[in-house]
Protein backbone atom coordinates (compact mmCIF):
# COMPACT_ATOMS: atom_id res chain seq x y z
CA UNK A 1 0.00 0.00 0.00
CA UNK A 2 1.36 3.40 -0.95
CA UNK A 3 0.83 5.46 2.08
CA UNK A 4 3.03 8.30 3.22
CA UNK A 5 4.46 7.79 6.67
CA UNK A 6 3.33 10.38 9.19
CA UNK A 7 6.00 12.99 9.89
CA UNK A 8 4.03 15.02 12.41
CA UNK A 9 1.01 13.54 14.13
CA UNK A 10 -0.17 17.01 15.16
CA UNK A 11 -0.95 18.03 11.59
CA UNK A 12 -1.01 14.75 9.66
CA UNK A 13 -2.56 12.29 12.10
CA UNK A 14 -3.14 8.71 10.96
CA UNK A 15 -4.15 5.95 13.35
CA UNK A 16 -3.07 3.30 10.83
CA UNK A 17 0.51 4.59 10.76
CA UNK A 18 2.89 1.84 11.93
CA UNK A 19 4.37 4.09 14.64
CA UNK A 20 0.93 4.66 16.18
CA UNK A 21 -0.01 0.97 15.88
CA UNK A 22 3.26 -0.10 17.53
CA UNK A 23 3.04 2.28 20.51
CA UNK A 24 0.54 5.16 20.55
CA UNK A 25 1.11 6.30 24.14
CA UNK A 26 4.27 8.44 23.70
CA UNK A 27 2.61 10.07 20.69
CA UNK A 28 -0.48 10.87 22.78
CA UNK A 29 1.73 12.40 25.44
CA UNK A 30 3.59 14.54 22.92
CA UNK A 31 0.35 15.73 21.29
CA UNK A 32 -1.26 16.50 24.63
CA UNK A 33 1.55 18.92 25.41
CA UNK A 34 1.89 20.51 21.99
CA UNK A 35 -1.56 20.45 20.57
CA UNK A 36 -4.37 18.83 22.41
CA UNK A 37 -6.50 18.42 19.26
CA UNK A 38 -4.54 16.96 16.36
CA UNK A 39 -5.64 17.40 12.77
CA UNK A 40 -5.24 15.51 9.53
CA UNK A 41 -6.20 15.96 5.93
CA UNK A 42 -6.27 12.20 5.58
CA UNK A 43 -9.63 10.42 5.40
CA UNK A 44 -11.11 13.59 3.97
CA UNK A 45 -10.35 15.64 7.11
CA UNK A 46 -10.13 14.51 10.72
CA UNK A 47 -9.72 15.97 14.23
CA UNK A 48 -8.29 13.95 17.10
CA UNK A 49 -8.76 15.25 20.66
CA UNK A 50 -6.21 14.04 23.21
CA UNK A 51 -7.57 15.46 26.49
CA UNK A 52 -10.20 13.78 28.63
CA UNK A 53 -12.03 17.10 28.85
CA UNK A 54 -12.39 17.40 25.07
CA UNK A 55 -13.22 13.73 24.48
CA UNK A 56 -15.92 14.02 27.14
CA UNK A 57 -17.29 17.28 25.72
CA UNK A 58 -17.58 15.83 22.21
CA UNK A 59 -19.03 12.51 23.38
CA UNK A 60 -21.72 14.45 25.26
CA UNK A 61 -22.46 16.95 22.49
CA UNK A 62 -24.92 15.22 20.18
CA UNK A 63 -26.06 18.61 18.85
CA UNK A 64 -22.81 19.28 17.01
CA UNK A 65 -21.52 15.75 16.48
CA UNK A 66 -23.36 12.83 14.92
CA UNK A 67 -22.78 9.10 15.32
CA UNK A 68 -24.08 8.48 11.80
CA UNK A 69 -20.90 6.58 11.27
CA UNK A 70 -18.48 5.54 13.98
CA UNK A 71 -15.68 3.95 11.96
CA UNK A 72 -13.45 6.35 10.03
CA UNK A 73 -13.41 5.47 6.34
CA UNK A 74 -11.21 6.25 3.39
CA UNK A 75 -13.08 9.33 2.20
CA UNK A 76 -15.45 12.05 3.21
CA UNK A 77 -18.91 10.67 3.89
CA UNK A 78 -21.89 11.81 1.88
CA UNK A 79 -25.58 11.85 2.74
CA UNK A 80 -26.44 9.24 0.12
CA UNK A 81 -23.76 6.68 0.84
CA UNK A 82 -22.90 5.84 4.45
CA UNK A 83 -19.14 6.16 4.46
CA UNK A 84 -18.28 3.00 6.25
CA UNK A 85 -19.50 -0.38 5.03
CA UNK A 86 -20.80 -1.06 8.48
CA UNK A 87 -23.72 1.06 7.26
CA UNK A 88 -26.47 1.83 9.70
CA UNK A 89 -26.09 -0.24 12.85
CA UNK A 90 -28.55 0.95 15.50
CA UNK A 91 -28.13 2.06 18.18
CA UNK A 92 -24.39 2.80 17.84
CA UNK A 93 -24.97 4.74 14.62
CA UNK A 94 -28.12 6.48 15.89
CA UNK A 95 -28.53 9.99 17.25
CA UNK A 96 -31.25 11.22 19.58
CA UNK A 97 -34.16 10.75 19.72
CA UNK A 98 -34.18 7.40 17.89
CA UNK A 99 -31.02 6.31 19.70
CA UNK A 100 -32.75 5.94 23.07
CA UNK A 101 -35.52 3.80 21.57
CA UNK A 102 -33.17 1.45 19.72
CA UNK A 103 -30.88 1.22 22.74
CA UNK A 104 -33.62 0.56 25.28
CA UNK A 105 -34.69 -2.41 23.20
CA UNK A 106 -31.28 -4.07 23.51
CA UNK A 107 -30.16 -3.08 27.01
CA UNK A 108 -32.07 -5.74 29.02
CA UNK A 109 -30.14 -8.53 27.27
CA UNK A 110 -26.88 -6.94 28.48
CA UNK A 111 -27.89 -6.11 32.06
CA UNK A 112 -25.94 -7.86 34.84
CA UNK A 113 -28.45 -10.62 35.52
CA UNK A 114 -28.61 -12.20 32.01
CA UNK A 115 -24.88 -11.63 31.53
CA UNK A 116 -23.95 -13.29 34.82
CA UNK A 117 -26.03 -16.30 33.79
CA UNK A 118 -23.44 -16.86 31.04
CA UNK A 119 -20.54 -17.13 33.48
CA UNK A 120 -20.57 -20.93 33.62
CA UNK A 121 -20.59 -21.18 29.83
CA UNK A 122 -17.66 -18.74 29.68
CA UNK A 123 -15.68 -20.65 32.30
CA UNK A 124 -16.14 -23.93 30.42
CA UNK A 125 -15.13 -22.24 27.18
CA UNK A 126 -11.96 -20.79 28.74
CA UNK A 127 -10.88 -23.92 30.55
CA UNK A 128 -11.52 -25.94 27.37
CA UNK A 129 -9.19 -23.62 25.44
CA UNK A 130 -6.51 -24.01 28.11
CA UNK A 131 -6.92 -27.80 28.07
CA UNK A 132 -6.31 -27.73 24.32
CA UNK A 133 -2.95 -26.01 24.84
CA UNK A 134 -1.70 -29.26 26.41
CA UNK A 135 1.74 -29.21 27.96
CA UNK A 136 3.28 -26.76 25.49
CA UNK A 137 5.90 -24.54 27.05
CA UNK A 138 4.89 -21.68 24.76
CA UNK A 139 1.25 -20.89 24.14
CA UNK A 140 -0.29 -18.15 22.05
CA UNK A 141 -2.59 -16.18 24.33
CA UNK A 142 -3.92 -14.21 21.35
CA UNK A 143 -4.48 -16.81 18.67
CA UNK A 144 -5.25 -19.79 20.92
CA UNK A 145 -7.11 -18.04 23.72
CA UNK A 146 -8.30 -14.40 23.74
CA UNK A 147 -9.73 -14.36 20.23
CA UNK A 148 -11.99 -17.38 20.81
CA UNK A 149 -13.73 -16.21 23.98
CA UNK A 150 -15.87 -13.31 22.72
CA UNK A 151 -16.64 -15.23 19.53
CA UNK A 152 -18.07 -18.04 21.63
CA UNK A 153 -20.17 -15.65 23.72
CA UNK A 154 -21.50 -13.61 20.81
CA UNK A 155 -22.29 -16.75 18.79
CA UNK A 156 -24.25 -18.10 21.75
CA UNK A 157 -26.14 -14.87 22.39
CA UNK A 158 -26.93 -14.05 18.75
CA UNK A 159 -27.61 -17.67 17.80
CA UNK A 160 -24.78 -18.45 15.39
CA UNK A 161 -22.96 -21.77 15.09
CA UNK A 162 -20.10 -22.16 17.60
CA UNK A 163 -17.61 -23.46 15.04
CA UNK A 164 -17.46 -20.46 12.70
CA UNK A 165 -15.09 -18.22 14.62
CA UNK A 166 -12.74 -17.71 11.69
CA UNK A 167 -15.62 -16.48 9.57
CA UNK A 168 -16.75 -13.88 12.13
CA UNK A 169 -13.21 -12.72 12.81
CA UNK A 170 -12.80 -12.31 9.06
CA UNK A 171 -15.93 -10.10 9.03
CA UNK A 172 -14.64 -8.01 11.86
CA UNK A 173 -11.26 -7.65 10.25
CA UNK A 174 -12.87 -6.45 7.01
CA UNK A 175 -14.91 -3.82 8.80
CA UNK A 176 -12.46 -2.57 11.39
CA UNK A 177 -9.02 -3.08 9.95
CA UNK A 178 -9.61 -2.59 6.24
CA UNK A 179 -10.22 1.10 6.69
CA UNK A 180 -7.50 2.28 4.36
CA UNK A 181 -8.94 0.31 1.43
CA UNK A 182 -10.95 2.23 -1.17
CA UNK A 183 -14.69 2.27 -0.55
CA UNK A 184 -15.52 0.04 -3.57
CA UNK A 185 -13.15 -2.62 -2.27
CA UNK A 186 -14.64 -2.42 1.21
CA UNK A 187 -18.19 -2.73 -0.14
CA UNK A 188 -17.11 -5.78 -2.10
CA UNK A 189 -15.49 -7.29 0.98
CA UNK A 190 -18.71 -6.64 2.90
CA UNK A 191 -20.95 -8.60 0.46
CA UNK A 192 -20.35 -12.08 1.97
CA UNK A 193 -21.01 -10.70 5.47
CA UNK A 194 -24.34 -9.34 4.32
CA UNK A 195 -25.26 -12.64 2.66
CA UNK A 196 -24.33 -14.61 5.78
CA UNK A 197 -26.34 -12.47 8.17
CA UNK A 198 -29.39 -12.47 5.90
CA UNK A 199 -29.21 -16.27 5.83
CA UNK A 200 -29.07 -16.38 9.65
CA UNK A 201 -32.14 -14.10 9.85
CA UNK A 202 -34.05 -16.27 7.36
CA UNK A 203 -33.22 -19.44 9.26
CA UNK A 204 -34.43 -17.86 12.48
CA UNK A 205 -37.66 -16.72 10.82
CA UNK A 206 -38.37 -20.33 9.86
CA UNK A 207 -37.15 -21.80 13.09
CA UNK A 208 -37.25 -19.32 16.00
CA UNK A 209 -34.75 -19.77 18.83
CA UNK A 210 -34.25 -18.30 22.28
CA UNK A 211 -31.55 -15.87 21.17
CA UNK A 212 -31.01 -12.27 20.13
CA UNK A 213 -31.70 -12.88 16.43
CA UNK A 214 -35.19 -14.19 17.17
CA UNK A 215 -35.59 -11.42 19.74
CA UNK A 216 -34.89 -8.80 17.07
CA UNK A 217 -37.23 -10.47 14.59
CA UNK A 218 -40.07 -10.42 17.15
CA UNK A 219 -39.26 -7.01 18.64
CA UNK A 220 -41.56 -4.05 18.19
CA UNK A 221 -41.06 -0.34 18.52
CA UNK A 222 -44.35 1.44 19.16
CA UNK A 223 -46.36 -1.48 17.82
CA UNK A 224 -44.32 -1.85 14.65
CA UNK A 225 -41.91 -4.67 13.84
CA UNK A 226 -38.35 -3.49 13.22
CA UNK A 227 -37.34 -2.60 9.69
CA UNK A 228 -35.28 -5.42 8.13
CA UNK A 229 -32.37 -2.96 7.85
CA UNK A 230 -32.58 -2.32 11.60
CA UNK A 231 -32.46 -6.06 12.42
CA UNK A 232 -29.57 -6.52 10.02
CA UNK A 233 -27.69 -3.46 11.29
CA UNK A 234 -28.01 -4.46 14.92
CA UNK A 235 -26.75 -7.96 14.13
CA UNK A 236 -23.72 -6.47 12.38
CA UNK A 237 -23.19 -4.33 15.46
CA UNK A 238 -23.40 -7.28 17.86
CA UNK A 239 -20.91 -9.31 15.85
CA UNK A 240 -18.48 -6.48 15.15
CA UNK A 241 -18.63 -4.65 18.46
CA UNK A 242 -18.65 -7.74 20.62
CA UNK A 243 -15.66 -9.61 19.26
CA UNK A 244 -12.50 -7.58 18.54
CA UNK A 245 -13.08 -5.34 21.49
CA UNK A 246 -13.19 -7.93 24.28
CA UNK A 247 -10.58 -10.05 22.53
CA UNK A 248 -8.30 -6.99 22.69
CA UNK A 249 -9.10 -6.28 26.33
CA UNK A 250 -8.36 -9.85 27.42
CA UNK A 251 -5.19 -9.95 25.30
CA UNK A 252 -3.87 -6.61 26.62
CA UNK A 253 -4.45 -7.74 30.20
CA UNK A 254 -2.49 -10.97 29.68
CA UNK A 255 0.20 -8.99 27.84
CA UNK A 256 0.54 -6.67 30.83
CA UNK A 257 0.71 -9.54 33.32
CA UNK A 258 3.33 -11.31 31.20
CA UNK A 259 5.50 -8.18 31.35
CA UNK A 260 4.86 -7.37 35.01
CA UNK A 261 5.53 -10.41 37.21
CA UNK A 262 4.89 -8.43 40.41
CA UNK A 263 1.35 -7.57 39.35
CA UNK A 264 0.74 -11.17 38.29
CA UNK A 265 2.05 -12.52 41.60
CA UNK A 266 -0.10 -10.09 43.60
CA UNK A 267 -3.30 -11.09 41.81
CA UNK A 268 -2.48 -14.81 42.01
CA UNK A 269 -1.89 -14.41 45.76
CA UNK A 270 -5.01 -12.27 46.24
CA UNK A 271 -7.65 -12.83 43.54
CA UNK A 272 -9.86 -10.17 45.16
CA UNK A 273 -7.59 -7.67 43.36
CA UNK A 274 -8.82 -8.90 39.99
CA UNK A 275 -11.83 -6.54 39.63
CA UNK A 276 -9.80 -3.37 40.27
CA UNK A 277 -6.97 -4.72 38.11
CA UNK A 278 -9.44 -5.26 35.27
CA UNK A 279 -10.69 -1.68 35.55
CA UNK A 280 -7.09 -0.48 35.46
CA UNK A 281 -6.27 -2.61 32.41
CA UNK A 282 -9.38 -1.15 30.77
CA UNK A 283 -8.15 2.34 31.57
CA UNK A 284 -4.53 1.94 30.57
CA UNK A 285 -5.11 -0.26 27.50
CA UNK A 286 -8.61 0.86 26.48
CA UNK A 287 -9.16 -0.99 23.23
CA UNK A 288 -11.81 1.16 21.60
CA UNK A 289 -11.68 4.49 19.78
CA UNK A 290 -14.96 5.70 18.32
CA UNK A 291 -15.65 8.25 15.60
CA UNK A 292 -18.14 11.05 15.15
CA UNK A 293 -18.91 13.37 12.25
CA UNK A 294 -19.18 17.14 12.56
CA UNK A 295 -22.82 17.99 11.80
CA UNK A 296 -22.33 21.56 10.56
CA UNK A 297 -19.36 23.94 10.37
CA UNK A 298 -18.47 24.60 13.99
CA UNK A 299 -15.64 26.15 15.94
CA UNK A 300 -14.60 23.84 18.77
CA UNK A 301 -11.93 25.29 21.07
CA UNK A 302 -10.39 27.25 18.23
CA UNK A 303 -10.52 24.36 15.77
CA UNK A 304 -12.43 25.33 12.62
CA UNK A 305 -14.37 22.09 12.16
CA UNK A 306 -16.19 21.62 8.87
CA UNK A 307 -19.38 19.69 8.20
CA UNK A 308 -18.57 15.98 7.74
CA UNK A 309 -15.06 16.24 9.15
CA UNK A 310 -14.25 13.12 11.14
CA UNK A 311 -13.65 13.22 14.87
CA UNK A 312 -11.55 10.34 16.11
CA UNK A 313 -12.83 10.06 19.67
CA UNK A 314 -9.91 8.55 21.52
CA UNK A 315 -11.08 7.04 24.78
CA UNK A 316 -7.58 5.51 25.14
CA UNK A 317 -6.09 9.03 24.99
CA UNK A 318 -8.63 10.37 27.51
CA UNK A 319 -7.70 7.50 29.82
CA UNK A 320 -4.03 8.52 29.82
CA UNK A 321 -4.60 12.24 30.41
CA UNK A 322 -2.51 13.30 33.42
CA UNK A 323 -4.83 16.25 34.02
CA UNK A 324 -7.58 13.74 34.77
CA UNK A 325 -5.72 10.77 36.28
CA UNK A 326 -2.93 10.69 38.85
CA UNK A 327 0.09 8.80 37.53
CA UNK A 328 -1.81 8.35 34.29
CA UNK A 329 0.95 6.44 32.54
CA UNK A 330 1.41 3.93 35.35
CA UNK A 331 -0.64 0.78 35.68
CA UNK A 332 -1.78 0.60 39.31
CA UNK A 333 -3.83 -2.54 39.78
CA UNK A 334 -5.41 -1.36 43.03
CA UNK A 335 -6.18 2.18 41.83
CA UNK A 336 -8.91 3.47 44.14
CA UNK A 337 -10.34 6.27 41.99
CA UNK A 338 -10.73 5.27 38.36
CA UNK A 339 -13.39 7.08 36.35
CA UNK A 340 -12.07 5.60 33.13
CA UNK A 341 -13.79 6.06 29.79
CA UNK A 342 -12.92 2.70 28.22
CA UNK A 343 -16.61 2.04 27.56
CA UNK A 344 -17.18 5.55 26.28
CA UNK A 345 -18.95 8.51 27.85
CA UNK A 346 -22.47 9.82 27.42
CA UNK A 347 -25.43 8.19 25.75
CA UNK A 348 -23.40 5.70 23.69
CA UNK A 349 -21.82 3.94 26.68
CA UNK A 350 -20.82 0.48 25.43
CA UNK A 351 -23.95 -1.65 25.53
CA UNK A 352 -21.89 -4.77 26.21
CA UNK A 353 -19.80 -3.44 29.09
CA UNK A 354 -21.20 -5.90 31.64
CA UNK A 355 -20.57 -8.74 29.21
CA UNK A 356 -17.02 -7.55 28.49
CA UNK A 357 -16.22 -7.33 32.21
CA UNK A 358 -17.62 -10.77 32.90
CA UNK A 359 -15.59 -12.24 30.02
CA UNK A 360 -12.43 -10.50 31.24
CA UNK A 361 -12.94 -11.64 34.83
CA UNK A 362 -13.44 -15.27 33.82
CA UNK A 363 -10.84 -15.36 31.02
CA UNK A 364 -8.03 -13.72 33.00
CA UNK A 365 -9.05 -15.54 36.19
CA UNK A 366 -8.92 -18.96 34.52
CA UNK A 367 -5.66 -18.19 32.74
CA UNK A 368 -3.78 -17.15 35.88
CA UNK A 369 -5.31 -19.96 37.91
CA UNK A 370 -3.89 -22.53 35.51
CA UNK A 371 -0.71 -20.57 34.69
CA UNK A 372 0.28 -18.70 37.86
CA UNK A 373 3.64 -17.68 36.35
CA UNK A 374 4.32 -16.73 32.74
CA UNK A 375 6.28 -14.25 30.64
CA UNK A 376 6.45 -13.00 27.07
CA UNK A 377 8.19 -15.67 24.99
CA UNK A 378 9.38 -13.11 22.47
CA UNK A 379 8.47 -9.45 23.06
CA UNK A 380 9.30 -8.53 19.47
CA UNK A 381 6.85 -11.10 18.12
CA UNK A 382 3.85 -9.40 19.74
CA UNK A 383 1.74 -7.66 17.11
CA UNK A 384 -1.15 -5.21 17.56
CA UNK A 385 -4.27 -4.68 15.51
CA UNK A 386 -4.56 -1.47 13.50
CA UNK A 387 -7.52 0.85 13.35
CA UNK A 388 -10.00 1.83 16.04
CA UNK A 389 -9.73 -1.32 18.13
CA UNK A 390 -6.33 -1.91 19.68
CA UNK A 391 -5.09 -5.13 21.20
CA UNK A 392 -2.42 -7.81 20.81
CA UNK A 393 -3.07 -10.35 18.08
CA UNK A 394 0.04 -12.52 18.15
CA UNK A 395 0.91 -13.04 21.81
CA UNK A 396 3.36 -15.89 22.45
CA UNK A 397 3.64 -16.62 26.17
CA UNK A 398 6.14 -18.86 27.94
CA UNK A 399 4.50 -20.76 30.77
CA UNK A 400 6.80 -20.83 33.82
CA UNK A 401 4.51 -22.57 36.25
CA UNK A 402 1.36 -24.69 35.98
CA UNK A 403 -1.22 -25.27 38.65
Amino acid sequence: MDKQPVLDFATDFDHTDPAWVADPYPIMEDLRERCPIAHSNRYGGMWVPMLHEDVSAIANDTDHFTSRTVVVGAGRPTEEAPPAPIGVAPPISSDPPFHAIARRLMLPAFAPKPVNALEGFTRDLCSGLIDKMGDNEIVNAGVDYSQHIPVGLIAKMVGLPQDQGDLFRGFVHTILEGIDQPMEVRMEMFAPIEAYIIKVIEEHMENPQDDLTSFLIDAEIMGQKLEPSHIFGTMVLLIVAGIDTTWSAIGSSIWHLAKNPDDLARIVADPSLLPSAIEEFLRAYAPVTMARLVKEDFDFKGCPMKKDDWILLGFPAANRDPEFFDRADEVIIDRVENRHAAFGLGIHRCMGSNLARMEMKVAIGEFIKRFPKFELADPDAVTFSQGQVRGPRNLPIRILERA
Partner: protein
Amino acid sequence: MKIHLTSEKCQGHGRCYSLASDLFDSDDLGNAVVLVTGELNADQLERATVAANNCPEYAIEIGA
Protein backbone atom coordinates in the same frame (compact mmCIF):
# COMPACT_ATOMS: atom_id res chain seq x y z
CA MET B 1 -24.53 11.63 54.80
CA LYS B 2 -26.64 10.09 52.05
CA ILE B 3 -26.27 8.85 48.49
CA HIS B 4 -27.61 11.19 45.83
CA LEU B 5 -27.94 9.65 42.38
CA THR B 6 -28.74 11.84 39.39
CA SER B 7 -30.43 9.26 37.19
CA GLU B 8 -30.32 11.50 34.11
CA LYS B 9 -26.52 11.42 34.27
CA CYS B 10 -26.28 7.65 34.77
CA GLN B 11 -25.39 5.83 31.55
CA GLY B 12 -25.17 2.37 33.09
CA HIS B 13 -21.41 1.94 33.34
CA GLY B 14 -22.17 -0.29 36.33
CA ARG B 15 -19.19 0.76 38.41
CA CYS B 16 -21.23 1.56 41.52
CA TYR B 17 -23.14 -1.70 41.74
CA SER B 18 -19.96 -3.66 41.00
CA LEU B 19 -18.08 -1.90 43.77
CA ALA B 20 -20.83 -1.72 46.42
CA SER B 21 -23.57 -4.21 45.63
CA ASP B 22 -25.28 -3.67 48.99
CA LEU B 23 -25.66 0.06 48.31
CA PHE B 24 -26.43 0.06 44.58
CA ASP B 25 -28.19 -2.31 42.21
CA SER B 26 -28.89 -2.45 38.50
CA ASP B 27 -32.33 -1.93 37.01
CA ASP B 28 -33.47 -4.04 34.04
CA LEU B 29 -31.52 -1.79 31.66
CA GLY B 30 -28.25 -1.82 33.60
CA ASN B 31 -28.71 1.65 35.07
CA ALA B 32 -28.02 2.33 38.73
CA VAL B 33 -30.56 2.17 41.53
CA VAL B 34 -29.76 3.25 45.11
CA LEU B 35 -30.57 0.59 47.71
CA VAL B 36 -29.74 2.59 50.83
CA THR B 37 -31.48 5.94 50.67
CA GLY B 38 -31.14 6.92 54.34
CA GLU B 39 -28.17 7.99 56.44
CA LEU B 40 -25.03 5.95 55.81
CA ASN B 41 -23.01 4.36 58.60
CA ALA B 42 -19.22 4.76 58.56
CA ASP B 43 -18.55 1.59 56.60
CA GLN B 44 -21.28 2.35 54.07
CA LEU B 45 -20.05 5.91 53.70
CA GLU B 46 -16.56 4.75 52.85
CA ARG B 47 -17.77 2.36 50.17
CA ALA B 48 -20.36 4.77 48.78
CA THR B 49 -17.58 7.33 48.40
CA VAL B 50 -15.45 4.83 46.47
CA ALA B 51 -18.42 4.10 44.20
CA ALA B 52 -19.03 7.82 43.65
CA ASN B 53 -15.34 8.37 42.85
CA ASN B 54 -15.43 5.71 40.15
CA CYS B 55 -18.49 6.91 38.27
CA PRO B 56 -17.33 8.05 34.83
CA GLU B 57 -20.40 10.28 34.46
CA TYR B 58 -20.28 11.97 37.88
CA ALA B 59 -23.82 10.76 38.53
CA ILE B 60 -23.32 10.01 42.25
CA GLU B 61 -22.78 12.49 45.04
CA ILE B 62 -22.47 11.85 48.75
CA GLY B 63 -23.86 14.66 50.82
CA ALA B 64 -26.33 15.80 53.39
